[in-house]
């Protein structure tokens, strides 16, 4: 079997994406024909869960994907060497909001009251990392809340709104939707001075070797698309609603986020995530920055602390 993306010359790439706002510039680039213009043949493969997306990367059905640092380290640990080529979201603290939301009518209104309350998360993922760090930042011991594994976001939202979870950690736009439905935001990662939830673009090492020029072009296209979105959000509103799966109730009010130009994640970020993973026994030992990040494609980012 030929590995995915091979065949039609070097210029083709297959990317696994979950259709959420994080990945919106890719959809814009596709719509505007920017890939073709750059002489690239990019196929955006939609996935509905991170689990299936990672399986497909392992199976070499896709060359790369938009993921997070936790997933990157786990893929490498699981025997699929991958590297981050760039951040796509989370370069600044205001990008990519995650919020700990209490259910409508909950008595919990301040972080101190979280002790013993149930909290819907997705275990062993970036979500749990964000949750732990948010709690620690607010001075709450993460072990003192009762974590409930609810891997899929829509289900977490429903259980929260249905009152079966006291609190839940949700990314936007679901956090906004929960708020709109009467949920109360307890903690918010855009309100602290550090972005916990960074989205990264990763590729398998062999793809990086074989298709370095294509990846470079892809990142240029991404930068262009990110610029387009940030400068004229109204033009892409329709596309945003459909491709980023904006909940029906928010489609008139919810604004698309701003996207920074491509840059690699900061060393402290990579180290901090891995420190958490080692403490959780998800990793035996942290990887070095160079093992996880390939800085040859885009300029280094600033530390966003």
């Amino acid at each position, binding site marked *: 079997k030929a590995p995915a993306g091979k065949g039609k010359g070097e210029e083709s790439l297959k990317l696994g994406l979950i259709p959420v706002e994080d990945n919106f510039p890719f959809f814009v680039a596709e719509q505007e024909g920017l890939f073709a213009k750059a002489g690239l043949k990019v196929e955006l*493969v*939609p*996935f*509905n869960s991170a689990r299936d997306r990672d399986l497909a990367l*392992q*199976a070499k059905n896709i060359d790369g994907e938009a993921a997070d640092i936790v997933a990157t380290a786990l893929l490498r640990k699981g025997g699929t060497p991958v590297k981050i080529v760039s951040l796509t979201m989370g370069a600044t603290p205001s990008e990519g909001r995650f919020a700990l939301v209490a259910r409508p009518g909950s008595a919990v209104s301040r972080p101190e009251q979280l002790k013993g309350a149930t909290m819907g998360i997705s275990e062993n993922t970036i979500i749990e990392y964000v949750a732990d760090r948010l709690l620690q930042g607010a001075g709450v011991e993460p072990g003192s809340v009762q974590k409930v594994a609810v891997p899929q976001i*829509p289900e977490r939202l429903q259980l929260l709104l249905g009152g079966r979870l006291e609190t839940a950690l949700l990314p936007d736009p679901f956090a906004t939707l929960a708020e709109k439905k009467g949920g109360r935001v307890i903690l918010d990662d855009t309100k602290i001075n550090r972005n916990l939830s960074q989205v990264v673009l990763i590729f398998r090492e062999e793809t990086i070797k074989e298709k370095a020029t294509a990846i470079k072009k892809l990142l240029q296209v991404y930068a262009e698309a990110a610029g387009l979105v940030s400068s004229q959000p109204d033009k892409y509103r329709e596309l945003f609603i459909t491709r980023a799966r904006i909940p029906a109730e928010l489609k008139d009010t919810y604004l698309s986020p701003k996207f920074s130009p491509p840059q690699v994640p900061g060393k402290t970020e990579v180290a901090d995530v891995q420190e958490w993973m080692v403490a959780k026994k998800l990793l035996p030992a942290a990887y070095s920055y160079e093992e996880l990040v390939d800085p040859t494609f885009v300029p280094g980012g600033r530390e966003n602390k």
Partner: protein
Amino acid sequence: MRDSRQALSYILSILFLFSLWWLVAVWINNPGLPGPLPALRSLVKVGWPELARHLYISTYRVLGSLALALIIAVPLGLWAGRHPAFDSFLAPLVYLLYPVPKVALLPVAMVLLGIGDATRMLVIFLVIVNQILITTRDAARQIPHQLLLSVASLGAGKISLYRQVILPACLPEIITASRISLGSAISVLFLSETIAGNSGLGYFILDGLFRADYGAMFAGILAMAGMGLVLYILLNFLEYLLCPWQRL
């Protein structure tokens, strides 16, 4: 007369179902479960050309994998039912593999078949092939010895015995198995369509769920239930044609 009474029963039953749904919806009063009327309304309003495309793709996947499973499981099941030695070999395979969660097989399927239709149909196939196999085998075991002897005495060879006795004797059970598999196939279809890609009713429903657009979601669910019902009616018709002696 009997036919019209049956049609009435059908309609009554559907009405009953919808009132039940309505009651539950009113009772739990959760946006995740709209009542039947809003759901029907959104079924009407939804982008039909698009829904039809998803419906077509899903139907194709279900029927394709059902056909494949029948082609493979029926002969194996008949054979295992009549040959205990072969069954002793096959049964543990089935019993061990049937409960294995299909995620375990997903990596294999993805490596071998990619993330297209083939993987989806394989996952459906793997579930229902076991169901058809088990039912067919159990039916073949029960064939009265007398009938086999009677046809053997006419000089029938192995193949004729299968064609004239074993297959028709098990046909009603094979149709039962198809009924069950049809339901399972649709359930698994839903799961397999949520893995990757953007086609099929499963995707449509999940998309609705992600958008918290429960109207669209239930339009998809209704379409899926409708697809199931139509396929069931076709299966009943097939039974009518294939098993005339059952109608006496």
